[in-house]
């Protein structure tokens, strides 16, 4: 409600926001500073940043944009790397460089969706388990154990094998593989936080459960969650490529790296470029996220290791 005499102009709003969030801004700056001290983390951060940029501006840096939409040029098939085709052409005469670039966007989307869905399922369940305790906790943790007892790729294979091939089903399968990790992480944190003094005091002054969860518990979980999420991004993309390689992930003509390697394999050893470049793309992407995750962990959550 606008009061008489209130001057609501831009600068005062910004400086007020700055003042309110001073500690957060400071810790963010501290994070960046600490990160920059570790050369590997810088590498990781730059790789991830580069990937994001490529994903965003992808369509602008393609040499043969029509090739990503499904255009085929049978006369140009299987040509080695050259000036106009930096990574060579594939079995349908398409430019591999363009497809690898678009694959970046696809892979990042896949990774983000998997991690977010896994978090969406795992975090609430973890909080419920940790906060409510008792038999609810037991049941949730047992179910989590069950899912964690199966090697991830095998579980994903079983689910996709049943749902049918396709990138959507692969994402569903991989989300189901990843959510238990978040439950474990959050449940442990919630359990220990529940007994903390500040939570006790909040409860004693009558704060509702939801309020306690959102203002006290969740914020304290964010650090390990962020660390885990960034490591998981890389791993999720790797697993998606694994499924793509087996043939149950992304389908043609999607430019998914794993699928491209699977096809390229048929043309070895003469046409080595088809399988090599997408593999390097996967390697760099996963490496970037791993390094970033490592760096973030050293900064945000140094007690946890391994």
């Amino acid at each position: 409600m606008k009061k008489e005499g209130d001057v609501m102009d831009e600068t005062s709003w910004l400086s007020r926001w700055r003042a309110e969030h001073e500690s957060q801004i400071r810790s963010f700056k501290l994070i960046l500073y600490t990160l920059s001290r570790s050369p590997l983390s810088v590498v990781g951060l730059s790789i991830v940043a580069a990937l994001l940029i490529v994903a965003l501006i992808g369509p602008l840096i393609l040499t043969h944009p029509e090739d990503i939409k499904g255009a085929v040029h049978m006369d140009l098939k299987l040509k080695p790397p050259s000036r106009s085709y930096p990574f060579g052409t594939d079995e349908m005469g398409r430019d591999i460089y363009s497809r690898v670039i678009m694959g970046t966007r696809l892979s990042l989307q896949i990774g983000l969706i998997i991690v977010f869905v896994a978090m969406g399922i795992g975090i609430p369940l973890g909080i419920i388990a940790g906060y409510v305790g008792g038999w609810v906790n037991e049941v949730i943790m047992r179910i989590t154990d069950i899912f964690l007892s199966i090697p991830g790729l095998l579980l994903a294979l079983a689910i996709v094998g049943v749902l049918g091939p396709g990138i959507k089903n692969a994402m569903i399968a991989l989300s189901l593989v990843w959510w238990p990790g978040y439950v474990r992480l959050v449940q442990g944190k919630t359990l220990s936080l529940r007994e903390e003094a500040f939570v006790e005091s909040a409860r004693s002054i009558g704060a509702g459960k939801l309020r306690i969860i959102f203002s006290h518990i969740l914020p304290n979980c964010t650090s390990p969650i962020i660390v885990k999420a960034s490591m998981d991004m890389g791993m999720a993309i790797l697993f998606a490529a694994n499924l793509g390689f087996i043939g149950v992930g992304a389908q043609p003509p999607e430019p998914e790296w794993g699928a491209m390697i699977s096809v390229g394999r048929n043309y070895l050893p003469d046409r080595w470029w088809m399988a090599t470049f997408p593999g390097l793309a996967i390697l760099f992407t996963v490496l970037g996220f791993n390094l970033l995750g490592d760096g973030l962990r050293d900064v945000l959550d140094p007690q946890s290791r391994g």
Partner: protein
Amino acid sequence: MGLSMKRFFVKRLVLMGITLFGLSVVVFSISRIAPGDPARLAAGPDATEEMVEVIRKEFGLDRPLIVQYGLYMKGLLKGDFGRSIRTRHQVWEDIKNYLPATFELVFVSISFATLFGILFGVLSAVYRDRWIDHLIRFFSVTGVAVPMFWLGIMLQLLFSAKLHWLPLGGRLDTMIPPPTPLTRFFLIDSLLSGNWVVLKNGLVHIFLPAFVLSFPALASITRINRAEMLEVLHKDFVLNERAHGLPNRVILFKYALKNALIPTLTMIGLRYGWMLGGTILVETVFDWPGIGYYAVAAAVYSDFQPVMAVTILLGLNFMIANLLVDIGYGYLDPRVRYE
């Protein structure tokens, strides 16, 4: 073995049993949400309607879900995993054929990864910041990020196709018959029967697949072992310095290693699980006739019985591995109490 350890053991076994049961439910549910008609799959492309119905009855696919699950569990307890639609054999028969190959590969890989992981981790910690440390650190960082199947393909390309040093795939050359089956692990059987030709051939064939399969585990184990070694060494080195005595390298070393091994052991256990999943990829690339390949072929075929069986078996195997890891703690650190 103290009383607390026995109690721990029993409790863990019970827990394992519950988890296993839950696993069977989960796996069974997954297998039954399949679209398509599995009976028709089994009957084959030229089947008539009546032929399809015959198959449907034979596999029990016309009964309600609960009944199917009941039949399935009854069979499981007897060791009957059903019949594969694709190979038309009993699943346990197929698994009997394929399991040794996978476990030979996995055991070689995990041994390799553990041995060299610890070795490299120690080397890296002891010679900190020298060139060998940097080299090892480079590989351990990239090693986890490398796609296993791609690594396999690239190594095949280099060592097999271009250099002709190593074979492309399989467990043995075509012309070499497998050794007399005792354990069905080719390396052990050929050793036991003194068959050096087969032993050498088997080793040459297992080298690349095992290396590729162990690579990410090797990298992780190296990393964590190095980190733990460094922490312990640093702590105690400082302590010793303060005590004004010359640090006895050997004792320090043994003590540090033992302490570093505890978190390393956790990583080994974790990585073992990932390795079991990785067999799917490595067996496909190297034509290795194991259950990883069997599961992939079945999954692609919508043949659910084998996939369920493999999932449960490998899940069980992973649980046992974790149990062994926990027991390992007890020997490494007597302070650990079993609640």
